[in-house]
């Protein structure tokens, strides 16, 4: 980053409206002995340059698997069964393994929830950092320690001269996550996927790391795909949000619109069920029931068995046919019969 600032960033960004990443109807299934687990089942989303795209949902909704699929890091028994992942207009699913290796870490980087288990415990963080550069910029290129130091400085690690020769266990969780971010940023990727980057961290450290991600986006104009279960983080960070439930996207909107007027009954329930500081309610709203098993999905809308709106409006279609993602309001998409039936 600072070490690489001379590369002219502006040239890399054509001023078009072409989305950086365009995922269409992605399906990733796991073929297990118990049955087919439809972890991701028809997700479509786009990420534009320089924007923070939030993906929010509860555990098991397929948000992490969507990210892993984009990088083609899905292991057996999992398989991407259909869909299209266009990155800068090229379908990643048609790339060779070698092309994917060249792309990972260079154009698309990912950081994970557990920074400490993502780092190699027996290597100094400096050499782990430089590995990224060595892989992507050729083994012949002269690489020096100063470069690692300046990468660490850019992510706000105090005393980077000393820290560069630390082992991961000598660092705190927040510091280790900064190292992960430095690694992800080393080649100035166009897209940073952050999969629950602060879930393992304390709130004051979480604020530091989120602040860092936001600053890096502002400074380098990279796009961020921020995966989280925390509605608060989405509200504060994301420009645009996709809400996922049981393997599909159920709602997509600009952050302000989503929190101002959520359309999908699941999103409404989710927002009403979290305590918000400064707005004390006597009781929290509750979404009845539990997330269905991904092996045995209900027919029709996946949320139908828990949906209050379905009962209230006496919708018949919900348990029969799956609704489609429609644009219910300008730039506000929702997958719910409540709005689809209105249209027809």
């Amino acid at each position, binding site marked *: 980053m600072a070490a690489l600032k001379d590369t002219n960033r502006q040239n890399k960004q054509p001023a078009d409206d072409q989305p950086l990443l365009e995922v269409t109807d992605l399906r990733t299934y796991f073929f297990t002995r118990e049955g087919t687990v439809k972890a991701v089942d028809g997700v479509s989303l786009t990420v534009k340059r320089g924007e923070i795209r939030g993906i929010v949902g509860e555990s098991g909704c397929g948000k992490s698997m969507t990210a892993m699929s984009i990088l083609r890091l899905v292991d057996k028994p999992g398989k991407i069964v259909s869909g299209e992942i266009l990155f800068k207009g090229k379908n990643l699913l048609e790339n060779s393994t070698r092309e994917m290796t060249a792309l990972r870490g260079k154009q698309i980087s990912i950081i994970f929830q557990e920074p400490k288990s993502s780092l190699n415990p027996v290597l100094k963080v400096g050499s782990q950092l430089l590995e990224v550069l060595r892989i992507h910029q050729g083994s012949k290129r002269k690489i020096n320690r100063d470069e690692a130091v300046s990468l660490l400085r850019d992510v706000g690690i105090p005393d980077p001269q000393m820290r560069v020769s630390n082992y991961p266990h000598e660092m705190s969780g927040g510091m280790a996550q900064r190292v992960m971010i430095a690694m992800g940023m080393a080649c100035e990727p166009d897209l940073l996927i952050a999969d629950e980057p602060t879930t393992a961290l*304390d*709130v004051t450290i*979480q604020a530091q790391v989120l602040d860092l991600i936001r600053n890096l986006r502002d400074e380098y104009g990279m796009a961020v795909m921020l995966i989280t279960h925390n509605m608060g983080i989405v509200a504060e960070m994301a420009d645009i949000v996709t809400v996922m439930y049981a393997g599909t996207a159920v709602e997509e909107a600009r*952050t302000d619109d989503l929190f101002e007027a959520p359309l999908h009954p699941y999103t409404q329930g989710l927002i009403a069920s979290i*305590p918000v500081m400064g707005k004390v309610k006597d009781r929290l709203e509750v979404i009845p029931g539990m997330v269905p098993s991904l092996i045995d999905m209900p027919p029709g809308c996946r949320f139908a068995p828990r949906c209050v709106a379905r009962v209230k409006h006496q919708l018949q279609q919900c348990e029969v046919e799956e609704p489609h993602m429609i644009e219910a309001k300008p730039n506000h998409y929702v997958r719910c019969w409540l709005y689809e039936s209105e249209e027809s």
Partner: protein
Amino acid sequence: MTNSENLLEIRDLKVYFEVKGGILKRTVGHVKAVDGVNLSIKRGEILGLVGESGCGKTTVGRALLRLIPATEGTVYFNNQNIFKLKPSELKPLRSQMQLVFQDPYSSLDPRSRVGDIVGEGLRVHGVSNRGERHQRVLEALRMVGLQEHHMRRFPHEFSGGQRQRIGIARALVLNPSFIVCDEPVSALDVSIQSQVLNLLKDLQQTLDLTLLFIAHDMSVVEHLCNRVAVMYLGKIVEVADREELFRNPQHPYTQALMSAIPIADPKIKRQRIILQGDPPSPLNPPPGCRFHTRCQEVIDICSQVIPEQIDLGNQHFCACHRRQPVQEAATS
């Protein structure tokens, strides 16, 4: 001796853990997990104890139940100094004080049936009649929203939220008056979290329980608790009633903690305080005020003198050199 309004009084509680090192495994230092905590819990209230990981909040909860030995200090429960009791005298008190754990997966024996897990406490406390045990387990399960047929099942057959309900039923079965809830919802998904929070609130009201609710999430604490204590590195830095604390936080750490919490409402714009650095190690805490290494209002005295808790009036206490106590004139 103690105020009869208080069910529990903690005086100058210290819990140090020895750190062994070298080939002779000698004590080379102490982790001062809890270092002089004074706190009282009133009858029928929910007291929130918040702080970040490693601040000693869980240790406070365990020490006052005498699950781990305290290094110093006293705890009065119903005017009885429980640190002075012999094990045989302590046992009847145990049924009065229960604990709900954070992780609903590791805190339930995977090889026991739910009925046995919930009923174990009854057996230990001398309810030898099978029929009566069955009846009381059933009552406890119904209170947390589970059914009779659940008694014969094993923990793995339940979801995280239901497991936490089982943990709560186990705490309730002995009709305790006081329950320590150690991060009971932080392992749960958001939509399940609200179910358990509502349950705790209902149970506290119907059974007139006193709860110590240990958490790291300020918004959960604000929702549930009547009074809140904020902990940092083994010490209580601020205590106040909920409304007072959230409207008017005084300690710089409390202010930073509140501003660090992401709020699920993009319309609320706040002044952000982003703390620098990490919390220091409790093995070697900084001298003076423990927060001074990260504090934005730090002055010279902070690194030298440990601040006393001062009364800000309105039942609001804060340990900070930069705050002034209420005028004595008001009391005379």
